Each structure stands twice: as structure tokens, then as C-alpha cells.
């Protein structure tokens, strides 16, 4: 075998890491000996999601892209935590501390960018590093430092009101700090948006509680050993115990400069991504300058990685990198800001179209150049962006009447119609994944959102395109891919839709999961189908269901929720959130007796005991003497209440009694996904009933509005009014009827918020209120039968279904 060529990559960030993946994907492992240097000890992770880590919506582990073991497996040599010190272009060798020397045939520089730190007095301590409480925001290490500091901090100042500064500010807000953004110029994000948009953005952020100070130049950081505040050039000060500097970044080019490569703002590269004065060295990502532009965005970095991998491996030796059509978003929940292409008119003849709707905080600005869309700023209305992005990317001509860009006449303006998008339209902008590629992958068998995202890479960057990917998955299952029906199967292991499956199960009298898999699933006990089948069979057969415990998730085998360390949480039922002193005392006693690591009031108006080992569950339940709260399973969970008419001076209805009644009647009823309910005693809605799966709100005249399909979890949706009921009993009736209809007709793990949207509230009213199909009596009888046989699963403490049901480690041999 011939000697492999040596490919050395400096920088294990988003560009360098991706390049290695792309090279390997093209069979580059057989061509090259690959060596990667990564200065960052945390390795190769998704930097974009650091904003999420700071906000607490992503865990540091979750943003890891490739672990060190991945490199080892692929035969790539990784110098992790090693900073390259020197490039010797003559000898073609890389030098790093620890006497590391790596010769190269081809060198790729992907050193990214470095935060700009303005000259402010008092930033550095004696050792030359930042003083305690001062941070930049670029690496996972930075992010963890900020989080640690925020845990004891009260007030944070973010220097810099650009994208990353604002994301940092909102992240710190969600960690409970008072947050101040200090910005140098007269409006936020001045390089990307105009003053009007800047002001509207400011208002949106201020509504979220972020305090913004414009035209403030920071002169000094105050405080002795710890930071205590900032002093500005205008003489004013601001007290704070945490400072995050987010004043922009600049390409990391020191290494390249030292090596004598041509560097302007970034490392200057040709269209083939090689350096201007050394064809054996290429640069990609934030550190590269192409046709006078540096990007600082992940889209171009990944596009460059693809092109370079094509060239290096010979997959496409002619591949060249052309200008990226860039766009970016502010990743702050509740503030929609998308920036596409140019932010302002910059050539003669550019036409600027603006639309402003102050009451909704909507601001749209379009730059039209030679009949094409050259840029757009979209604030406050996320729905417009997919369509405009598509027009921008594909260079489609803009309609003569520019208004049609904003208010399309042909289709529903609210929802850009995915079905009508052409196959080459980008859906994932981070990874440049087209609609066509996603549809292909569905066809090739990727039928879960997770699998589809992994296969196509769509959704693995900022994640904002996931709803569209999901919609395409559904679309592919319904219309265009009718010849591929598997996407509509209720479970992967049985080729049937839920309706057909239920019919077959009834007809063949299949009462256990293994019987269904044997008869209808080709005899394979598919592990991904078992829990969903168990859920369905329980609904179909009720008491006649033949329970097989191995078909259940561990939570349902031991009636408790598994936690990250393999211990469990115990949440006893507290009907309507009303507890007696005796119950509270008992909970306290149990917590002490079993040295429960954490006792917590939950968001569901009850108390959780966390960190209980499996083998202690039966004893804990016994000592509690309270029934299971079903906090671990897909079933009726809680009915939250407010104090209501008996105590509250505004109360119109007795929400407390109603809530307790509902919970007593429906406790433990299993369903396709969990069900959380609430009753509020007046429209002030203190129990949050309008955003629950089912909720009741008392209104004037002794009436109750019954809401269904609300949620305030990963999605926020106001429930739809199913009907207005006249009494507690009537509310209970509609609640029960809706729940039974949901149990029979929803897909596995479909929450009511999706279910209600899918069926439509009109249809639900027709079926469940008007009884247009005559199904109501059947539904009512069915749910009564189920509720009547309710048994508390925690009784298995004294009657386990298997002697080792709660066993921890079994003694094997010594």
C-alpha cells in the first residue's frame, strides 16, 4: 500500500470538526492520515447552542458533536487541549508545546475567531487574567464560568448589544439575574439593523425585563478583588457582580500571520479555499476571508468544509466556494428576529420596502436590488421568514407589487406552505439541507424526527428549523409518499395504522403485546413497539388486557420516574393540591427516615421526593400511605386548582371542589400521553387552566368554560373552548368524554395540544357536544368503566408482580 498523505487540521471547532467528518464521509480515511489540533479542552461542540446552555435550555453534554472516542474510532489523531504554536512552511511541519511535531502535506487552518476585548480599566488581575466576575462568551469554558458566577450573582452587566450580547443577556435573565445591557452606540445591533428596528427590538427585550443602556462607553470595572460595578465615560455608574463582554469577535489569524500567509481581516483564500500564497494551506470558517468578506457564521463555515472535502478527497476536484447567502436569527425565546443578506441599501438603485406594525411589534424591511431580494430584516413575525429566505436563496424574482412579498395573495399568508416549496428550497439553513434531501431521507426509511435529523443533519445546528422538518416528515407520510405507508404505522413493528390495528386486535382478540407482535408483527418482538402497543391494548381491552411487564418502560414497571443517576422520584397524589397537616408530616417523616436527597414542591402543586433507590420504593410508599401521583407515566397527572370562591374575594366558582372531584374521578387513567388539568375560580385564571390539556374556568352566572388542547410546556398554546358548562357535574362529563375520545383516537405520545389541532375544535364540538355521530353515550360508558376499576399501583409494594420487581443488584457470585 502507498503511504497515505498527511492532512493536518488546526482548530477542532465547528469548521475543523465538520471538515474531518466530511473528509471521512468521502472515504478520506483511506487517503489521509488525519491529525487534528484543538486548543479547547472541551473538544468539538456546537458553539451556537452555547446561548442555550447559558439559558439552561441545553445541557453542556447535549451540545457535544464528536467525543474524543469518535476520533480514536475513526483513526484520526486528536491533540485535544493543545494549542499550535508555530507553522514551519518550509519544512511543512506544525509545532506545539510538549515537543509535538506533526509534518503535513496539506494543512487546513480553522482557528475560528476570538472575542474583542475593549480597553477598559480594571479588567485584569495581578496574574494578567480577567478578575473574578468578568467573562467573555465564546467557549463552553466561558459559558460554565458565567453560569457558576451567576449562581451567586444578583446583577449582571453585558457589555455589547449585538446578537451574542443579547443572547447572553436573555440567558442570564432566565437564570434569575437582573440584567443590564450596556451598548456603545445609539441603537442595538447597529451593524445589522436600522434605528427603527433597533428601537423596536429594544422594546421587545425590555418587555422581557432586560434593562438597556445606550450610548454608554465603559471606562472602568469597579471593585477590589471582586467586581462591584461599572463606571462609564459620562461619569455614571452601574452596580453589578457579573460582567459579560460581548463586544464582537475578530478572526484568529496570529498563527497564519506568523507563518507569512496573506492576511487582511482574515486569512485570504481563493475560491478553492487555498491561501493566496501557499497552495498547500487552506483556511475555512471564521478565520478565512473570501472575496473580501469574513463571516462569523456557521452556515458559510460548513459550506466551506463541504467544498474543501470535495476537493481534498477528489470527490469533486473542481468544487469551488462561492459567496454564501447568509442569514441569521436571534435565538431568544419570544423575540423573533431574522436577518437575511444585506441589512440596508448599499448600492444605487436599491429599493427599500418597509412595513411597521407597532402594536404587535412587527417590523419588516426588504432590500430589493435589480428585481431580486438582496436582504431583509424581519422582527416580530417569524412566519414570514421561511418564504423570504427561499426567495433570497434561490434568487427568485420579486413580484411587481412588492406587497405580495409580505402578504402573498395566492396562499395563506400565515403559514408558508411547505407542500408548495420546490425540492431545492433550503429548509435547514445552518446545514444547507433542502426539502428534497429531507423527503428522500424519509423515503429511505428515516421516520422519526430524531432519525431524520441525524441522517440529513437538518435541525442539528441552531435547531430552529425542527418544526419544518417535522412538518415535512408528516407531509411525506400523507400526500406525496402514499406508496410508502410505513410512516403512518402506529408502531414501527406492525404495518398498520392505529385504526386498522385496533380493528385487527379486536377481531383476533389479541390481548397481550406478545400476542400482537406474534400475530401481526411477523413474530419479531420489536423493542420500539412494545410500550406503545401496551398503551393501546390497555385502552382497547381495559380489564381484559393481559399485562406483560416487559412491554413497559421502567417507569411503569416500578411506578416511579427514573432519574439521571438511575434512582427514582416519588410523587404522591395530593388531590387538587390540597394537603392535610398529617399528610405533610408523613411526607416529612419519610423524607427524614430515608434520607431523601431532595424534597421539592413541584410545578404540579404537589411534593416530589427525589433520588430514591429502586429497592426502597415499596417501603417509601408504604410509609407514605398516600396513593401514587402517576408523575412517571402517560396518564392523568394532576388537576391544579386555585383557592376559588370559598376564600378568594374574586372567586366566581368553587374551583377547589371541582378540581378535587375531577382528580378523584380520573386519577391514574392511562392515555396516549400525559394529561394535566386545572380549574380556576375566575378568569384571572390563577390555576393556568387555559394552558392545560383540559381546563375549566368559572365565569359569571355560575358557569364554567371548558378548555381543551392548551399547553405551556415545550410549546405554548392557549386551549380552545369546547363548551360552556352549567355545573360541576356537567364540566366533569365533558372532561371525561373528551379524555376518552383522546384516548381512543390520538397517536402514541401525541399531546392534546397536537391532537386538538389535528382534529379541529369545530369537529370536536360537533362530536362531543352536539353528539352529531351519536358516540357520546359509548364514550361516557367506556370511561366510567375504566374509572370504576382504578387501583393504586403503589399497592404493589405489598403484592409485587414478581419477587424481584424492585430488586436492585442481585447477588450473583463473590
Amino acid at each position, binding site marked *: 500500500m502507498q503511504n497515505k498523505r498527511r492532512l493536518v487540521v488546526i482548530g477542532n471547532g465547528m469548521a475543523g470538526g465538520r471538515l474531518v467528518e466530511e473528509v471521512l464521509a468521502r472515504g478520506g480515511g483511506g487517503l489521509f492520515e488525519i491529525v487534528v489540533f484543538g486548543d479547547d479542552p472541551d473538544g468539538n461542540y456546537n458553539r451556537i447552542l452555547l446561548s442555550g446552555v447559558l439559558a439552561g435550555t441545553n445541557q453542556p*453534554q447535549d451540545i457535544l458533536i464528536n467525543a474524543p*472516542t469518535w476520533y480514536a*474510532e475513526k483513526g484520526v489523531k486528536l491533540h485535544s487541549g493543545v494549542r499550535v504554536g508555530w507553522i514551519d512552511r518550509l519544512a511543512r511541519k506544525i509545532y506545539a508545546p510538549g515537543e509535538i511535531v506533526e509534518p503535513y502535506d496539506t494543512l487546513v487552518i480553522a482557528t475560528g475567531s476570538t472575542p474583542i476585548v475593549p480597553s477598559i480599566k480594571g479588567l485584569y488581575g495581578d496574574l494578567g487574567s480577567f478578575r473574578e466576575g468578568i467573562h467573555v462568551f465564546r467557549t463552553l469554558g466561558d459559558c460554565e464560568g458565567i453560569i457558576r458566577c451567576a449562581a451567586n450573582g444578583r446583577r449582571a452587566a453585558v457589555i455589547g448589544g449585538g446578537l451574542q450580547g443579547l443572547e447572553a443577556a436573555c440567558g442570564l435573565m432566565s437564570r434569575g439575574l437582573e440584567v443590564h445591557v450596556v451598548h456603545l452606540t445609539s441603537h442595538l445591533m447597529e451593524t445589522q439593523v436600522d434605528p427603527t428596528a433597533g428601537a423596536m427590538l429594544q422594546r421587545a427585550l425590555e418587555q422581557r425585563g432586560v434593562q438597556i443602556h445606550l450610548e454608554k462607553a465603559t471606562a472602568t470595572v469597579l471593585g477590589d478583588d471582586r467586581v462591584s460595578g461599572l463606571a462609564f465615560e459620562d461619569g455614571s455608574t452601574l452596580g453589578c457582580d457579573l460582567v459579560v463582554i460581548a463586544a464582537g469577535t475578530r478572526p484568529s489569524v496570529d498563527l497564519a500571520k506568523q507563518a507569512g500567509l496573506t492576511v487582511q481581516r482574515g486569512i485570504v483564500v481563493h475560491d478553492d479555499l487555498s491561501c493566496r500564497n501557499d497552495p498547500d494551506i487552506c483556511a475555512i470558517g471564521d478565520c478565512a476571508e473570501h472575496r473580501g468578506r469574513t463571516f462569523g457564521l456557521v452556515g458559510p463555515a460548513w459550506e466551506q468544509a463541504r467544498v474543501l472535502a470535495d476537493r481534498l478527497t477528489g470527490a469533486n476536484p473542481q468544487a469551488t466556494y462561492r459567496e454564501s447567502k447568509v442569514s441569521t436569527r436571534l435565538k431568544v425565546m419570544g423575540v423573533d428576529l431574522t436577518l437575511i443578506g444585506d441589512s440596508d441599501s448599499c448600492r444605487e438603485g436599491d429599493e427599500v420596502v418597509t412595513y411597521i406594525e407597532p402594536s404587535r411589534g412587527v417590523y419588516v424591511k426588504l432590500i430589493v436590488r435589480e428585481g431580486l431580494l438582496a436582504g431583509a430584516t424581519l422582527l416580530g413575525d417569524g412566519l414570514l421568514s421561511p418564504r423570504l429566505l427561499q426567495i433570497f436563496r434561490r434568487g427568485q424574482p420579486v413580484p411587481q407589487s412588492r406587497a405580495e412579498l409580505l402578504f402573498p395573495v395566492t396562499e395563506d399568508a400565515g403559514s408558508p406552505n411547505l407542500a408548495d416549496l420546490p425540492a431545492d428550497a433550503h429548509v435547514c439553513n445552518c446545514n444547507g439541507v433542502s426539502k428534497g434531501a429531507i423527503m428522500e431521507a424519509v423515503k429511505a426509511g428515516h421516520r422519526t424526527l430524531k*432519525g431524520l435529523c*441525524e441522517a440529513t443533519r437538518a435541525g442539528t445546528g441552531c435547531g430552529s428549523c425542527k418544526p419544518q422538518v417535522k412538518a415535512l416528515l408528516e407531509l411525506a407520510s400523507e400526500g406525496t409518499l402514499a406508496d410508502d405507508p410505513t410512516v403512518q404505522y402506529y408502531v414501527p413493528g406492525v404495518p398498520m395504522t392505529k385504526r386498522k390495528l385496533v380493528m385487527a386486535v379486536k377481531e383476533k382478540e389479541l390481548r397481550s403485546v*406478545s400476542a400482537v407482535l406474534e400475530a401481526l408483527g411477523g413474530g*419479531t*418482538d*420489536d*423493542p*420500539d*413497539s*412494545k*410500550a406503545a402497543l401496551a398503551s393501546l391494548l390497555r385502552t382497547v381491552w381495559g380489564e381484559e388486557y393481559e399485562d*406483560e*411487564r*416487559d*412491554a*413497559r*418502560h*421502567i417507569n411503569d*414497571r416500578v411506578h416511579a420516574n*427514573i432519574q*439521571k*443517576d*438511575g434512582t427514582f422520584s416519588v410523587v404522591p397524589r395530593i388531590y387538587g393540591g390540597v394537603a392535610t397537616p398529617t399528610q405533610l408530616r408523613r411526607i416529612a417523616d419519610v423524607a427524614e427516615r430515608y434520607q431523601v436527597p431532595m424534597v421539592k414542591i413541584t410545578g404540579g402543586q404537589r411534593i416530589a421526593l427525589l433520588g430514591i433507590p429502586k429497592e426502597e420504593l415499596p417501603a417509601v410508599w408504604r410509609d407514605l400511605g398516600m396513593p401514587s401521583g402517576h408523575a412517571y407515566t402517560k396518564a392523568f397527572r394532576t388537576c391544579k386548582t386555585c383557592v376559588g370562591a370559598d376564600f378568594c374575594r374574586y372567586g366566581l366558582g368553587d374551583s377547589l371542589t371541582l378540581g378535587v372531584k375531577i382528580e378523584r374521578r380520573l386519577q391514574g387513567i392511562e392515555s396516549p400521553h400525559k394529561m394535566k388539568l386545572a380549574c380556576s375560580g375566575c378568569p384571572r385564571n390563577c390555576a393556568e387552566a387555559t394552558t392545560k390539556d383540559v381546563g375549566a374556568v368559572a365565569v359569571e352566572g355560575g358557569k364554567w368554560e371548558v378548555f381543551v388542547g392548551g399547553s405551556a410546556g415545550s410549546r405554548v398554546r392557549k386551549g380552545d373552548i369546547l363548551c360552556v358548562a352549567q355545573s360541576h357535574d356537567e364540566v366533569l362529563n365533558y372532561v371525561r368524554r373528551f379524555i376518552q375520545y383522546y384516548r381512543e383516537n390520538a397517536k402514541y405520545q401525541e399531546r392534546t395540544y397536537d391532537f386538538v389541532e389535528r382534529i379541529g375544535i369545530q369537529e370536536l364540538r360537533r362530536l362531543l357536544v352536539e353528539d352529531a355521530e351519536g358516540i357520546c353515550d359509548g364514550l361516557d360508558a367506556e370511561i366510567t368503566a375504566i374509572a370504576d376499576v382504578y387501583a393504586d399501583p403503589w399497592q404493589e409494594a405489598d403484592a409485587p*408482580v*414478581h419477587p*424481584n*420487581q424492585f*430488586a*436492585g*443488584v*442481585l*447477588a*450473583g*457470585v*463473590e
Partner: protein
Amino acid sequence: MTAASTTTRCYNLGPLRQVPPGEGRVFRVGRSSVAVFRARDGKAYATQALCPHRAGPLADGIIGAGKVVCPLHGEKFDLVTGQSLGNRCPPLEIYPALVDDGGDIIVSLPNHQR
């Protein structure tokens, strides 16, 4: 199978009925722990006790069709080869296991395992 370079030893873990059908349990062998699974078809499998991703207790996972699904994040592993099906995790260590004529579980572990 080719001869492994490490030596192995067989252990009798007692009757198969300690594990409910279709489930798994953890057994202590010396100072280490092993996850043992009893498939519905009567076959036994043995793997390392904790998953390589976040140390999920594999014996608590759902099994079927020769695979185990980790209860923490749903990663799926082949019980025969140990491979992670999404290739997102390093493979599991798997140990040859069988049920002898007396209905006992026999697992063979590399010697360093003790």
C-alpha cells in the same frame, strides 16, 4: 470465534427465573456488575451494567429482537455485537451467556472483570 487473548471464566449466577421474562436484572460478580437479560424466547444475554453514554442502567431497559433500549435516552444496542444502533455511542461490552440444562444462567467473563 477466534480465541481471545484474555482468559475468561464461567460463572453460575443461579436460576433464570430470578429475571422476569423479557426483562433484565443486574448481578454482582465479584466486585463488578453485569446486566443479564432474559429474552421472551428463553435466550439469555449479558452486557456491561451501565451504558457508555451517561451510565444508564441497561438492565432497566426494554428489550426485544436481540436489542436493548437504554431507559435514560433511548439509545439502542445490539445484544449480540454490543454495537450502538445509531452509532452514537461506543459499543457495549458483551459477555457470552447461556442457560444450562438445570435452568441456571451461566456467564463467561474475562478474567480482568473481577
